């Protein structure tokens, strides 16, 4: 497998504010690579540098074999971008949106018409081809953004929070389509705040926070390494820590208190559960560990703003 995007100490400053603070990663051809992070982590800033609409402030960034910079039309010609914000052309119909876009990529007329029909079918919008954008639901708009991003048959697809604000049906449809594209050999760069999305789609992820990469790896490995297999939650006031922790903490790999809850991370929860039963705790939850636990452990469970 060859590396298709490589970043080394990549930095981005807006004025004095450092939005991306020296991150390094390598994305391989054909994989789905996820940037996972809370609001303001720097995900959008990073992918905008990758698809050459925003200049970097430092470090190096190579995309599809050339240095990324804002005048790099060759990268843009081969990249499909599904933006975080819905940037459809409200003055045009569904089909006109795609037609205009096809011209920007210099796709010949007959070929463009063929691809537009095919893509409208792919995103299940063929019945809406003459609708105004304002008549579409958010899910339809997001699907149209996907169709638009695929017009140039990109080798590299960048999806910036592609399912934000969608209902479960719409979200699953988009996941299926993205998986299909990956199956066809495209490289997928995804940003998301949804753990499930990262787990469903990504081969590898990085967890970003305040412009830095905290951890990188395959989702399942990260869970294993950071949390273990299971999580037990105990709802109990902080005053009880002194009584509870000496009994329970040694039975877990690690623990954490956030507000009114104690979290215990472990690989085999049975001894811990037995102890909890003996203590007769009224309010407990026992569940498999998820990426969300990793995420919250690394970025902190309280609100970051």
């Amino acid at each position: 497998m060859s590396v298709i995007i490589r970043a080394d100490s990549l930095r981005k400053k807006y004025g004095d504010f450092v939005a991306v603070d020296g991150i390094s990663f390598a994305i391989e051809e054909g994989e789905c690579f996820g940037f996972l992070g809370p609001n303001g982590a720097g995900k959008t800033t990073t992918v905008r540098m990758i698809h050459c609409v925003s200049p970097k402030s430092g470090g190096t960034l190579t995309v599809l074999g050339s240095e990324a910079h804002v005048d790099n039309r060759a990268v843009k010609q081969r990249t499909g971008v599904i933006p975080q914000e819905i940037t459809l052309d409200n003055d045009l119909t569904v089909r006109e949106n795609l037609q205009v876009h096809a011209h920007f990529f210099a796709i010949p007329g007959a070929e463009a018409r063929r691809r537009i029909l095919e893509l409208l079918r792919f995103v299940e919008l063929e019945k809406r081809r003459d609708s105004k954008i304002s008549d579409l639901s958010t899910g339809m708009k997001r699907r149209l953004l996907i169709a638009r991003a695929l017009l140039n048959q990109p080798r590299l697809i960048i999806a910036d929070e592609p399912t934000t604000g969608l209902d479960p049906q719409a979200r699953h449809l988009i996941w299926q389509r993205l998986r299909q594209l990956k199956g066809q050999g495209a490289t997928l760069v995804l940003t998301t705040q949804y753990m499930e999305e990262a787990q469903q789609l990504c081969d590898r992820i990085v967890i970003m926070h305040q412009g830095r990469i905290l951890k990188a790896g395959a989702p399942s490995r990260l869970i294993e390494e950071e949390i273990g297999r299971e999580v037990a939650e105990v709802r109990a006031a902080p005053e009880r820590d002194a009584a509870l922790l000496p009994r329970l903490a040694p039975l877990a790999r690690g623990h954490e208190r956030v507000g009114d809850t104690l979290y215990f991370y472990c690989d085999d929860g049975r001894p811990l559960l037995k102890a909890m039963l003996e203590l007769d705790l009224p309010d407990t939850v026992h569940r498999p560990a998820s990426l969300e636990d990793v995420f919250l452990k690394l970025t902190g469970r309280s609100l970051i703003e």
Partner: protein
Amino acid sequence: MTFSRRIVWVFWRNLVSYKRFVLTTFLASLIQPLFYLITFGIGMGAYVGYFGGKPYLYFLVPGVLTTSVMMSATFECLYGTFVKIVHEKLYDSLIATPVSAEDAVAGDIAWGAFRGLVSGGLMMVVAIFMGILPVSLLSVLLLVLLMVFVGVLFGSLAMIVTAFAPNFDFFNYYSELVITPMLFFSGVFFPLDKFPGWMKALAQFMPLTHAVAIARAIFNGDYGRGLIFNFLVILALEIAAFLAGVRLMKRRLIK
């Protein structure tokens, strides 16, 4: 700066969206100039009578025509472009394709010029119906070229303003402090020779003055040596404004 033939497709995008507004914009761009033609042309014309051997309307029509080109190109590149950047996020999706920021801005300046041409062209048609004809077919052709030329000038100037605009209100400064004074001190409605010296000097700094002088000469087939100077002034300003407009807009678009 990197320009490409994609400018044409940015222009074309505007044309596709225009077909839904075309009639309303016809009305909007006709009303103000018609208003000038009627109030000044008929009202003042009755007192002024003849101007250099021809009815006053032959003096007024080329002036109003140039003004309407200025207005349309200006407003398209102020409000039209601002909406596309801020409200519609259209520029964001443009520059994520092989269209460069320069292409996008140049395409919109060309579009502003086209809107100017449409307004000016409509004015010309109205004038022709009123019996006020350009002196020859060649004049008509030259006027069309001039309107495009003047449209690019005012479109580019407006882009410079848009590049700095935080909101719509900002445009009021430009239209009140620059556009409106130009309307009255550029010899659109009456000749400049009766003005005091300082005002005449001031008028020389207004691009509309030079544009109107050329339009009037072409309309009436009455060419003088001063026109070369008028033309060079506009040309120099146009090149400077275009390059500045594109560069400043790029600074706004690329963050």
